[in-house]
């Protein structure tokens, strides 16, 4: 198969972009200005931005020849926790889950940073450990001082933007560790996590998984005086210059995540290792790469980004609920694949994923503008997913050739 690798590579690199252009043109033809106008464009962008984050994380996972079915339920869990942190006062199930994890994480992070630092100064190992612990504690404690009061007053935007993703990181890392240390199929592990995370989300939400609305003064809704900080509303607003709305804030998160991951994949050793593991795990291991660690980090990132998406969801839909991210994992995977990343691992780019996300986003938008019923949308979606991959793999081309050859032979 390596035979037609050049051709395929070209396809996989450019294919997605062409696809995007095509669908965009179709959009213009079908809906003209309604489609083109800035308002609609920003809508599409704003909407896809949220689901894009798990897709970006998924890209890393799939590049290591893995899969993460739990991103959707991570979004759900995160949205519930986020909403409760914002709206509830005093200790709730949400706080008792998120905060301990958060502090432990802070501690560990601090520990490693400080330890590395001391190592640099070439101190003795024992020393570096001690200083590490000390440093970790200091960081953690300061954080406690900052966060703890918010338990009773309700949490601020910044806090949830840190605490909730950390929760995601943690659960993602859990996925990664089990996969790496247990040497089990990512499919199974994340399938399990998918079920458990949803259950957890429902449990934390209480009453078998009730919805937690988020109220804003500005939106003119209040629940017994309890409201979320206005700043949280900003997350779903649009940046405007001279009164012209230019870019959705969620879009920024999307863009940043893509840029960062792109940098990581292309410039950092870590990125090479991701590709190497996807390409040939055994070789990667024999080359002294710490495969287990890389995997753990990759799944952690996927979890973290999903949780972040959960936060954005809360802001966009002013609620947290246990089925917020249901089936998002499939959309994420679809986007990644349409973006030209191979499920076999080792091949693909995060930019492709971005394009894939946009393709799916515009598709939905156009079909809605066309008032196409949801069932037809489902049918089309399925066809397009398969079609896109067939195109990328240059299958149609091969079939054509085979066909022409047959005709020639007939003569």
């Amino acid at each position, binding site marked *: 198969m390596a035979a*037609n690798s050049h051709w395929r590579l070209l396809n996989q690199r450019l294919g997605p972009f062409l696809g995007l252009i095509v669908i965009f043109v179709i959009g213009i033809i079908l809906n003209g200005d309604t489609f083109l106008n800035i308002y609609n464009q920003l809508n599409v962008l704003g909407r896809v931005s949220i689901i894009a984050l798990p897709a970006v994380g998924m890209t890393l996972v799939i590049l290591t020849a893995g899969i993460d079915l739990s991103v959707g339920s991570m979004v759900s869990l995160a949205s519930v926790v986020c909403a409760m942190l914002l709206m509830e006062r005093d200790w709730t199930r949400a706080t008792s889950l998120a905060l301990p994890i958060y502090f432990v994480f802070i501690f560990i992070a601090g520990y490693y940073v400080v330890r590395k630092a001391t190592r640099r100064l070439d101190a003795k190992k024992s020393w570096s450990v001690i200083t590490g612990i000390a440093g970790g504690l200091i960081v953690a404690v300061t954080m406690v001082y900052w966060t703890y009061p918010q338990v009773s007053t309700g949490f601020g935007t910044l806090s949830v933007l840190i605490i909730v993703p950390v929760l995601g990181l943690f659960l993602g890392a859990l996925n990664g560790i089990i996969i790496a240390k247990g040497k089990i199929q990512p499919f199974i592990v994340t399938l399990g996590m998918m079920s458990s995370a949803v259950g957890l989300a429902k449990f934390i939400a209480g009453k078998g998984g009730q919805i937690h609305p988020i109220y804003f003064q500005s939106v003119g809704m209040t629940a017994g005086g309890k409201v979320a900080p206005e700043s949280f509303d900003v997350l779903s607003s649009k940046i405007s210059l001279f009164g012209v709305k230019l870019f959705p804030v969620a879009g920024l998160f999307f863009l940043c995540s893509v840029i960062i991951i792109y940098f990581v994949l292309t410039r950092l*050793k870590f990125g*090479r290792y991701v590709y190497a593991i996807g390409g*040939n795990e055994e070789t990667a291991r024999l080359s*002294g790469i710490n495969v287990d660690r890389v995997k753990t980090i990759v799944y952690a990132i996927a979890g973290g980004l999903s949780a972040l998406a959960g936060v954005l969801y809360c802001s966009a839909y002013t609620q947290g609920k246990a089925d917020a991210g249901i089936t998002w994992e499939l959309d994420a995977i679809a986007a990644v694949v349409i973006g030209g990343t191979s499920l076999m691992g080792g091949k693909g780019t995060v930019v492709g994923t971005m394009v894939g996300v946009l393709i799916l986003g515009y598709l939905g938008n156009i079909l809605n503008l066309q008032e196409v019923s949801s069932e037809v949308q489902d049918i089309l979606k399925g066809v397009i997913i398969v079609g896109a991959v067939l195109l990328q793999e240059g299958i149609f081309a091969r079939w054509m050739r085979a066909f022409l050859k047959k005709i020639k032979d007939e003569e």
Partner: protein
Amino acid sequence: MMEKPLLLMKQINKDFSGVQVLYDVDFEMSAGEVMALMGENGAGKSTLMKILAGVHTDWQGSILIEGEKHRFKNTKDAEQAGISIIYQELNLVQELSVAENIFLGREPAAFGGMINYPKMNRMAHEITDELNLNVDVRTPIAQLRVGQQQLVEIAKALSLNARILIMDEPSSALSDTETEILFRVIRQLIRRNVAVIYISHRMGEVFEIADRVTVLRDGHLVGVRSAKEVQRQELISMMVGRDFDQFFVKESAPQDEVALEVNRLTRKTIDGKYLIKDVTFRVRKGEQFGIAGLLGAGRTELLEAIFGADFLQTSGEVKINGQHIDYSSPEKTILAGLSLITEDRKGNGLVLGMSVEQNMTLAALREIVRYGMLSKSREKSVTGRFTHRLSINVSDMKNPIETLSGGNQQKVLLAKWLLTNPRILLLDEPTRGIDVGAKHEIYELLSELSKQGITIIIVSSELTELLSICDRIMVMREGTVSAILEHEEASQEKIMDAAAPLA
């Protein structure tokens, strides 16, 4: 050279889930020497080396380097101790570039974990030049061929500037010219006082490059000899545990009728690159027909084309006993009487999950079908027969195939294809990585088959082999036929300059 040994492995014992494969093996060598490690398939050579390289961690015994005790937890540890290894199987990431593969896990960093690509590529380029491997170091490995990939492996090992360099059958994928380059490099290393452990089944090479030879048999150390003094026969008997008069066997009796006829066979890659071009030749019934050529000459591609092995479009005609055959898929060609024993045993020869028995019957299940059902008893008898005939040593036919050593696996493959009772047997590097004992048996088998009127077409990179067992040798150059030599007229030189690419 009796100064204090650089490396000392004492009383090494190793078992795989209870199956003992190394018994109290001692291994010792000093800086600046080439130690050849020989032994039949499954003797334990690779295992011993993997222990030294930190791949296997659960073993008994001790490793001393310059008298200092070491016990490696992983390959990284071993590297730090100055040990690098070229594995018997290729260990490369197809998607990454040549340079990235060479420095995988050891990338020169700029700052903050960023890779310094210019530097890395420069360094990579220096090494590949040293090996006359002239490809752009930024091309993905996937676009290189087995041979070239093997050279990258070597480059990777060299890039470590190790004190101890282990080469586990590095030459088996290399043509003679490339092997020469390899030897040149080894000699340079020796001058730099590096210790090289060289595993090979090719006597010639061993005598050419090695200072001393350590021989293993069935996991036991048989002895150490100086390559200067020891005799070929002695080595063989040390390895095999028995003597035999004559090594190569050729009693083929080609008949007059043409069995296989290939006319203007051509195939291209999608990018229009010729893999083979207008290949035309005839092979007679019962003939042993050799195909020589450098790496990438298109020999594998030719066999695969005839056998209908992959989807690349192919044109030209293939006739068996004067009849056109449809070579669009193995399913069809096998019915037409063709069999292909591929280059890459693990990759596309065996089903590793399956038992020895099941692997053997896979291509000929209809042989063991009774009333439309598979009959276990027939399977047992049939496979038993061939196990005996090819003297495959396997304790239980129900064992997974991966518990057999290379040589025995190769014999299982032969059995598998003989079960389809083919008219024409295509063999691609059938003796690669196989010990002399097994080789000898295979030569015997081949001539026996040819006497039964089966046509043998054998691709090999070992010219001595081809020269001594083939009735005729076809030489390929860059996908085309450059010469077809009769047994009598054929010689190393003629073949080599027919094979050498046109400047």
